[in-house]
């Protein structure tokens, strides 16, 4: 495990966006998303305006646009669905590049694509400019129930530990001749997933013991 800073989604910087209080950024993102989702899907000028606003924010934050675009591949399943919509939806047909598609589906697909991309870019900008710890503190200031914040905090803390464990198990599998392309080896994957679950569960118990040992009585200290 390295000694680097921050999380994979975080881009280290000191811009005004980086320094803005986390709870304000969360509220801004939430407000932005509500406005984007509520905008009628044929108001294309409005969407262009949203994109422009977002690009301005990204420019101020000095996070390279390519950095965000690379990470927006998480959107791919939605893109696939959006591309599929014009072909599966019913209703009046229209011609695009000589292919007959559903007018209704085409509009829905474009709207999904546009709204989804705006959402993903905005969320990635928040993640790139806010340390996970600050984000959690921000959510707490927004009066999110403490239990939820704690669960997220533990997730952030143990994400690397569990993925590290997963990575070591994969290496151990492959070192003993496991081949992911061979269907006869697939049951092993299921058993590995089960083993990972049990290991994580047992780690949870050990962490709980360590917490009890330091006087934990069911409430995190403030």
């Amino acid at each position, binding site marked *: *495990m*390295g*000694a*680097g*800073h921050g999380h994979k989604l975080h881009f280290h910087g000191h811009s005004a966006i980086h320094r803005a209080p986390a709870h304000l950024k969360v509220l801004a993102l939430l407000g932005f998303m509500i406005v984007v989702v509520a905008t009628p899907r044929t108001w294309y000028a409005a969407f262009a305006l949203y994109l422009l606003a977002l690009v301005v924010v990204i420019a101020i934050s000095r996070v390279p646009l390519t950095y965000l675009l690379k990470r927006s591949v998480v959107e791919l399943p939605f893109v696939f669905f959006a591309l599929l919509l014009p072909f599966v939806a019913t209703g009046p047909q229209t011609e695009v590049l000589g292919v007959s598609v559903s007018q209704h589906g085409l509009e829905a697909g474009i709207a999904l694509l546009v709204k989804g991309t705006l959402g993903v870019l905005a969320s990635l900008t928040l993640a790139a400019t806010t340390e*996970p*710890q600050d984000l*959690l503190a921000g959510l707490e200031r927004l009066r999110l129930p403490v239990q939820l914040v704690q669960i997220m*905090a*533990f997730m*952030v*803390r*143990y994400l*690397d*530990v569990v993925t590290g464990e997963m990575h070591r198990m994969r290496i151990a599998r492959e070192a003993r001749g496991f081949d992911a392309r061979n269907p006869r080896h697939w049951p092993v994957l299921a058993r590995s997933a089960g083993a990972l679950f049990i290991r994580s569960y047992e*780690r949870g118990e*050990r*962490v709980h*013991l*360590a*917490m*009890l*040992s*330091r*006087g*934990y*009585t069911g409430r995190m*200290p*403030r």
Partner: protein
Amino acid sequence: MSVPVLDVRGLAYAYPDGHQALFGVDLHVHRGERVALLGPNGAGKTTLVLHLNGILQAGAGSVAVSGLPVEKANLREIRRRVGVVFQDPDDQLFMGTVRADVAFGPANLGLAGAELDRRVMAALDQVGMAEYVDRPPHHLSYGQRRRVAVATVLAMEPEILVLDEPSSNLDPASRRELADILRSLDVTVLMVTHDLPYALELCPRSVVLSGGTVVADGATYDVLTDEVLMEEHRLELPFGFDPRTALPPGR
């Protein structure tokens, strides 16, 4: 004789599945001592440790810490007095920053504000990790995490520090640095370990636990040079190590 920091009498324990791990353990540790708890795998060492701060409740017999019996009513004070450092620092360090982690124990004791800060920084100073106070624990090296794990317990100003395999998985330099830190602390130490040279280096006294009972209790040097005892309880010195020629500091 003064009241021992740790007073274990006739402690027996069976797990809920019926497996009996301890069969009447007697152990006394006095203020300022550093004691190694040795024994083969499955001897009951971890089970014993979990009794010292009341995670497990004695089936029979008793445990007292500086005269205070380990009972439900006293658990909070017991857990302040007994600081347990678990083997895997990833189990011990569960908060997002080193500061929050070291503060967790004392904050549970009700400390806050400047006094809490003072405790945190003092504990981190003792293990030489003060400059890492705002880093997330999972970004530290393994040796650094082990040292922070020790600090999380030191911040509670315990009367006895209980360490489970403190030298495991450390590279030789980190292992030596941890030894220097432990030697510099003014606190009673009980150290569970398989690392016999480490026990000889740090602990003048050793207790051997085997099959759920104490089978030897004496000077570490005498225990490690008792070949019959060592062989009987699956204790082995690493290749090339001879306590007779290894001179621990201060002897």
